[in-house]
């Protein structure tokens, strides 16, 4: 059970638009989630959600551009663990993915990333940034749901 409802100091970092940065973001968030009080399985799930989200930012948002960064923020406050992931891309459509659980989609190669994010987190918000970029905010409650 989470044991640190009073919050953690915000952790912020600009990540390169690379797959190595995806691994780094996941490792950071798992560590921060454990510090916040989540157990190992919960931290693993949060890490996987963040991994899928940062993949979207790197691949679909920044399109691996060496000139664009992924801004990554993690904090817990008011019994909520929050991760913000912002890219500098031209934006991409998150809602146009077919339901991966539908019988006709079960054998599709792709389209499960957003489903996993929603499965493992309590909330997912997407905000368009000006003049460009997309910010995704993920939250998960600390303590019993």
């Amino acid at each position, binding site marked *: 059970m989470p044991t640190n409802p009073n919050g953690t100091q915000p952790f912020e970092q600009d990540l390169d638009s690379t797959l190595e940065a995806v691994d780094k973001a996941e490792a950071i968030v798992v560590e921060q989630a454990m510090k916040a009080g989540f157990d190992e399985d919960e931290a693993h799930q949060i890490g996987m959600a963040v*991994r899928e989200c940062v993949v979207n930012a790197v691949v679909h948002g920044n399109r691996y551009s060496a000139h664009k960064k992924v801004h990554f923020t993690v904090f817990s406050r008011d019994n909520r663990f929050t991760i913000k992931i912002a890219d500098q891309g031209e934006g991409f459509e998150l809602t146009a993915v077919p339901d991966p659980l539908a019988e006709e989609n079960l*054998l599709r*190669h792709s389209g*499960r990333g957003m489903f996993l994010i929603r*499965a493992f987190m309590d909330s997912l918000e997407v905000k368009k940034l000006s003049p460009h970029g997309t910010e995704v905010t993920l939250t998960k409650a600390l303590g019993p749901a």
Partner: protein
Amino acid sequence: MSVKLNVRQVGDVSVIDAAGRITLGEGSSTLRDALRDLVTKGHKKVLLNLSEVSYIDSSGIGELVSAYTTVANQGGVLKLLGLTKRVKDLLQITKLYTVFEVHDDEAAALRSFA
């Protein structure tokens, strides 16, 4: 660590022992290349041993599905062996656990191909 693969032949079954992480990038493409190589050589019975695979992301799940359909499209069958709890949970929430034939015991898995 990315995924490491070792392919061995047990009778007419090709067993792929995978270890590490199957994630977007090298991990996914390594598995894809190994499967295509087996199918190209006419191997139609494939047992994918995931007991040493610690992590699979959505891209890795996609590769498992592609592996399944690639072998099936050639008239073959791909089965899974030795899922860790986390991989099993992932296949269950994505409803793929019922698509794959999954075994815990290698000898039983090999017999099931007969």
